[in-house]
């Protein structure tokens, strides 16, 4: 029975491991090494410069500007997305109270759930291009509506005051539906009789959400938090396609900075890798921090 075991392990494990080693592991490791060189592009010339790239990084105003925007994304996107997601999910799973039996969803729950999830199956490229047209100053959906009711029609993505917030709004828009479904699935797992008991005690809907639902959903919320935090540190595709960081770097993000430094206007591969390495540690510490601060006792129903 034991024969044939080793051949199977080898044939099943080696090809995936080789692929992973070549295309995932080795690039990550090389990034650290490249970040300590002054490699300028397609020549083989790359001299070690130690920590010089990282020192430049500390004084690079453009990088700090991009980081500031990522910090705003990090502070706003997860809170708003999770807030809206929880609100809609709780409406859909237990908003309807007119019904006879205890706790049910509002009418049309399945339709809402179907529709809310739409953005999740669209590619980010399509979302970015579509919203760019919606924000268009003359032919856009948004200004068309504002004009119809006689309000001012800003240039949105062309206006340094609004461009970044427009992108942020799209980020929230594209994520909420996913978390409605995710939280909805988790809420379904909460035993109904808990709610019915609290309901009989006369608890209001907000109390129910705050004292029952959120504590019981804490694990899922924590996962959502980490995912959204990582997404907020990225935001590259949306920004590149909607504003390309402009106007005047007002909507720049760190991912775009790195892309432009390596494959865009410049070919400073060494410096770009240094940005990448800094990002790596930033992402890691944000994830760890999110895990730490959100840690609570796990509740299991039995």
């Amino acid at each position, binding site marked *: 029975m034991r024969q044939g075991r080793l051949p199977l392990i080898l044939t099943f494990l080696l090809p*995936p491991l080789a692929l992973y080693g070549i295309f995932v592991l080795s690039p990550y490791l090389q990034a650290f090494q490249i970040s300590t060189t002054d490699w300028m592009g397609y020549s083989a010339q790359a001299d070690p410069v130690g920590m010089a790239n990282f020192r430049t990084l500390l004084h690079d105003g453009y990088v700090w500007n991009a980081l500031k925007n990522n910090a705003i994304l990090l502070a706003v996107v997860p809170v708003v997305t999770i807030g809206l997601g929880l609100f809609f999910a709780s409406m859909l799973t237990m908003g309807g109270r007119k019904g006879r039996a205890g706790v049910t969803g509002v009418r049309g729950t399945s339709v809402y759930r179907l529709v809310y999830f739409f953005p999740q199956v669209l590619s980010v490229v399509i979302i970015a*291009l579509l919203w760019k047209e919606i924000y268009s100053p003359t032919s856009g959906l948004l200004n068309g509506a504002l004009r119809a009711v006689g309000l001012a029609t800003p240039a949105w993505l062309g206006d340094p005051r609004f461009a970044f917030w427009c992108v942020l709004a799209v980020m929230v828009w594209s994520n909420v539906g996913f978390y409605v479904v995710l939280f909805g699935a988790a809420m379904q797992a909460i035993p109904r009789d808990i709610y019915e008991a609290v309901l009989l005690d006369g608890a209001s809907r907000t109390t129910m959400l705050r004292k029952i639902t959120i504590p019981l959903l804490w694990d899922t919320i924590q*996962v959502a938090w980490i995912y959204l935090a990582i997404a907020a540190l990225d935001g590259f595709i949306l920004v590149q396609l909607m504003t390309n960081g402009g106007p005047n770097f007002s909507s720049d993000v760190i991912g775009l900075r790195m892309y432009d430094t390596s494959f865009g206007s410049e070919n400073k591969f060494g410096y770009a890798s240094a940005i990448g390495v800094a990002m790596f540690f930033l992402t890691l510490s944000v994830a760890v921090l999110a895990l730490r601060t959100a840690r609570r006792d796990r509740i299991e129903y039995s």
Partner: protein
Amino acid sequence: MTTVDTGAPAAEATRAATPGDRPPRRELGVANVFSHGFLLLWGAMTVLPLAWMVLSSLKSNGEIISEPWGLPEALRFDNWSRAWTSAHIGRFFFNSLVVVAGSLSLTMLLGATAAYVFARYEFRGRQVVYYLFVGGMMFPVFLALVPLFFVVRSVGLLGTWPGLILVYTAYSLPFTVFFLTAFFRTLPTSVAEAALIDGCGHFRLFFRVMLPMARPGLISVGIFNFLSHWNQFLLPQVLLPGDGQDRMLAQGLSSLAVSQGYAGDYAQLFAGLTIAVLPVLVVYVAFQRQVQSGLTAGQLK
């Protein structure tokens, strides 16, 4: 079923008997209208952009610019054919289909085999290899972008579909293996043991017994991988540079948007977007349950 049926009138009776205990009854009605309004509003915010995109794809350029909210006077399907042929969206669509078919098959095959070994076979260093492997899930792709470009170039696969297929697969493996390992562990061991005692070889056991048993898990992770490969933009942007005919759909759309900026052919852009969106949307609506659970399953556990 019976417990619910008998429980409901009982609960109703308790409510009716003690009205004083539940003051927020009327306020709830107002709240219901209020929050129902929010639900509808968000629904409209989701549907409206897509409906607008489809409608605009059937308008003339003049109509799009002058009346963003207007309905098309005539249904101009020639926008679609223009996007399909002269903007090569049809071509790019086909390219994406071929590459995703390749990368998805490879991901599922390699992911399932690796996960099976991690889940069912003991060997030295298994934990270390497993965590090394699954750890790749944690980091965003673009941290590795610069070296990846040179790795792919040095193996001579830069600007080729096989290169793209291998890279898509490599970056999907961590999550796929993570998900499927957990899934294989939930399958009963008794079936496998019985098959081995009956003289079934290890390879046949996997392909004839274990793989069919893992079908629900394979479908979930397959849907997840399909969407992430289909929607990939960053990797082809870097690994398939230039403006050739062999690019992916996402790249084609973004360059269509750039050229639209110069040519002012809005209708063609909307038509291109619509062509790209509709098939995915139709598949999603048809398999809503599977798609939603496929995409959320990995996050929940």
